[in-house]
């Protein structure tokens, strides 16, 4: 995007998050919002990642721990179901994997270059050891 220089702003200028008006922001999900080019939602930090999380929905119990503890709003939950990961905003911290309570975990970290389908096919089996 074209950036305005610092000296091109008028006094009292304000960056707007949305194009147009949203009346009830707390009731409008992200896909229904018209983000402007000034919202960091349109940016990406995907190049920060060294490892990426891969989601295996077969083992997911929709507990939503990953959703509430994700620092980057990258776990997409709709209608109380975890439906996927927002790879534009995920920084690969790995908190979601740590807090995942299922056995085997339904989220695991893999190197950024690894292939999702291959990893899903060779997902680790249930760990019999009890803590």
């Amino acid at each position, binding site marked *: *995007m074209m*950036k*305005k220089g610092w000296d091109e702003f008028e006094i009292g200028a304000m*960056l707007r*998050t*949305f194009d147009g008006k949203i009346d009830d*922001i*707390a*009731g*409008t*999900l*992200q896909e229904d*919002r018209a983000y402007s*080019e*000034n*919202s*960091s*939602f*349109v*940016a*990406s*930090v995907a190049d*920060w990642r060294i490892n990426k999380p891969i989601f295996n929905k077969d083992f997911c119990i*929709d*507990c*939503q*721990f990953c*959703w*509430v*503890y*994700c*620092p*980057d*709003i*990258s776990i997409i*939950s*709709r*209608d*109380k179901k975890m439906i996927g990961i*927002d790879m*534009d*905003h*995920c*920084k*690969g*911290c*790995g*908190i979601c*994997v*740590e*807090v995942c309570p299922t056995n085997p975990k339904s989220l695991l*970290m893999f190197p950024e270059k690894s292939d999702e389908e291959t990893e899903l096919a060779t997902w680790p089996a249930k760990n019999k050891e009890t803590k």
Partner: protein
Amino acid sequence: MSEIKKVKNLKEFSTSADRFEGANLLCPGCAHSIIVREVLNATNNDLILSASTGCLEVCTAVYPYTSWDASWIHIGFENGSTAVAGAETMYKALKKKGRLKQPEREPKFVSFAGDGASYDIGFQWISGCMERGHNIMHVVLDNEVYANTGGQRSSSTPIGSSATTSPAGRVSYGEKKNKKDMIAIMAAHQIPYAAQVAPNKWKDMVKKIQHGMAVDGPVFINAISPCTTEWKFDPKDTMHIADLATDSLVFPLYEIIDNHELNITYRPKNVIPVEEYLAAQGRFKHLFKDEYKYLIKEWQERVDEKWAYLNRREEARV
């Protein structure tokens, strides 16, 4: 009085539409955004927000981007709280004169600040807000260090922590002063609500935030925010460190209502030794050398003493 958002369980909570956006520049695994999300999602009301200078401010408002989906202002290091207090005063005045365009909407006023901007630099301003009785909430993201500028000690830094201005080495074990008891100071302003929260106890957090937004008057919230960079642990362990902090009673969760009713809101089933909390972080690494081991014992005694004090206060209702 507007309706309080119903949050029965985590599944219900997860239907909230986030008002804080990704691609902010906070470190991977930073607890700041977890706390901010839990605070913002606790309500459906409109929000007027501010942030004092600190990690949260510099990372969420890097031109040309903003990560906030609500009115948000940043002025200086010290006056995030007064900026919101000013907005609140204007709102009250316009309401009184009947000049609000949508008087049925009741915005909530929240200011976020780090521990540097609350315990040290913004102290006087916050104290003023609390004393004047503005209807605002001040949330401290307490990472016990000036993380934004490279890890200088603040008055929230606990004893034995190695910070860049109080480094541990041959002659020193790091920070020598104990953490300021900010909750007690703020409660002494006779404010209706002051509480400590932790991001890992999300339900406790949401309950306290909702209580704080429902009461009329200034509210002070102190939230522990484990810092992967300055506390020196792996980004994936943020929640684990927060668990250790609350379960070892280093960071007890309690609330003070009107400065006389103290309630402990979380009692760990298994209290773990403070040593485990210290051992998990690089900033306390030197305490495990033989010559500084006595400090760990002192830590444990201090934490036990504080816990006993809180219990006494809870019982006595003073």
